């Protein structure tokens, strides 16, 4: 089992550790609900060092990124990032990722921990144009500092004016006395805040500086449990649950990161364009339970007549709404917002309504 640079700190903090994507990771420290609300209302810190980072360099870098990812990376200027996915050549998704334009001819791809090896093999296989690829996953640590008070805390540790960094933009600079920290206005919580990328050898120093700076705000460490409930309240997809090798970006509602433009050819472009034009037979939708219960991955979604119309891909009790919420693929005919559907939970059939995402208002 691999450990991140923060492993000893997690243990000292009394985290409950679980195996996740080959790493031993903190799932919770003080309790998932408490950590969730800390991020929504204040500020919390996640160790997300298990995520993978690939560098793509050289004169063919953009050509490569354009070919393997669905979004249009040619619109990125240095200091900008975008959400994207790797189509898999069979209409599905290899992984979802962030693409950072770090310098001219140098991009950083941030991928899911569970998919690092698969993505790395896939990228190399698709790199017929000869871009320079480097898997830096084992040398880079990542922290996500999220919540409405994140900027206030982080600003104490850097001269870079964090309020000047727009959403999905980043600056590389000095942070907590450490040079070359990537400070990115991104996140997976909808609560605002930043993600920091740093080398492993300075990671603990940065963590300690953040917790010292955030002491008066009551900053809390947050585990993967709350990370999941926070992203679900925003309707953000989780690879392996809501999207995978068998779901298309069009079905998953990721048409907005699938760009059919003349100057960009990419894997599955024609197939996905056809899907977009002709329509798909199922779509990923959010639903809220109208009765008490908690939807879970794999539960059936049925109609009034008990016919199966879909399956839950993610579910939880929303700590903010205090209701069961979930995502799932539902058949055409049931995808309209406001449609009544039912979730099969054990021996019961609980009423739910298809709703527009996110489940809660963004801060």
């Amino acid at each position, binding site marked *: 089992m691999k450990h991140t640079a923060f492993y000893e700190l997690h243990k000292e903090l009394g985290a*409950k550790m679980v195996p996740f994507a080959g790493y031993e990771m903190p*799932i*919770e420290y003080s*309790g*998932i*609900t*408490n950590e969730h609300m800390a991020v929504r209302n204040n500020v919390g810190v996640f160790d997300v060092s298990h995520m993978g980072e690939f560098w793509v360099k050289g004169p063919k870098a953009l050509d490569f990124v354009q070919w393997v990812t669905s979004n249009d990376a040619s619109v990125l200027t240095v200091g900008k990032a975008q959400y994207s996915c790797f189509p898999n050549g069979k209409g599905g998704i290899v992984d979802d990722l962030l693409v950072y334009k770090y310098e001219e001819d140098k991009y950083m791809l941030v991928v899911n921990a569970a998919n690092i090896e698969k993505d790395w093999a896939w990228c190399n296989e698709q790199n017929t144009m000869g871009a320079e690829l480097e898997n830096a996953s084992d040398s880079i640590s990542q922290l996500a500092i999220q919540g409405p008070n994140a900027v206030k805390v982080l600003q104490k540790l850097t001269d870079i004016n964090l309020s000047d960094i727009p959403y999905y933009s980043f600056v590389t600079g000095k942070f907590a006395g450490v040079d070359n920290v990537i400070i990115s206005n991104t996140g997976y919580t909808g609560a605002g805040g930043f993600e920091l990328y740093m080398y492993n050898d300075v990671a603990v120093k940065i963590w300690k500086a953040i917790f010292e700076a955030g002491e008066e705000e009551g900053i809390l460490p947050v585990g993967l*449990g709350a990370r*999941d*409930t926070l992203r679900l309240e925003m309707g953000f997809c989780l690879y392996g649950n809501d999207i995978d090798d068998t779901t298309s970006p069009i079905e998953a509602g990721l048409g907005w990161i699938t760009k059919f433009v003349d100057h960009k050819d990419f894997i599955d472009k024609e197939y996905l364009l056809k899907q977009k034009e002709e329509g798909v037979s199922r779509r990923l939708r959010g639903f809220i339970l109208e009765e*008490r*219960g*908690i939807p*879970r991955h794999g539960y059936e979604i049925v109609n009034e007549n008990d016919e199966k119309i879909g399956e839950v891909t993610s579910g*939880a*009790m929303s700590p903010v709404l205090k209701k069961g919420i979930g995502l799932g693929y539902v058949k055409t005919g049931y995808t309209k917002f406001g449609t009544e559907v039912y979730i099969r939970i*054990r021996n019961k059939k609980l009423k739910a309504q298809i709703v527009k995402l996110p489940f809660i208002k963004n801060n």
Partner: protein
Amino acid sequence: MNIPENLKYTKDHEWVSIDGDIATVGITDFAQGELGDIVFVEIETEGETLDKEEVFGTIEAVKTVSDLYMPVSGEVTEVNPDLEDKPELVNQEPYEGGWMIKIKMSNPSDADSLLSAEEYKALIG
């Protein structure tokens, strides 16, 4: 880890308090800690007579759902009404306000097969 001496236990991490032929049942401090934040306790077996080890309800934590098993045979005579609005009582006071059901035991001798505090302590290590 709080394991009161005066209670009986099961390998399913439930505690049982015996008073005559009435058994009060909840989950242990260890169990609530393992489950994490409890968000829903669903018990719809009030008035039913169930065998030992049958499922009397389910408990949902943020990350997991677990069945609750009858530690002894008997009729479920009462369900803790506070858990509907405050499932977190199971986390906060597992042996007091977090109790789940009362059972009128069919065979009071069932209690003999339950674990002592010491045996339960050994079980969870």
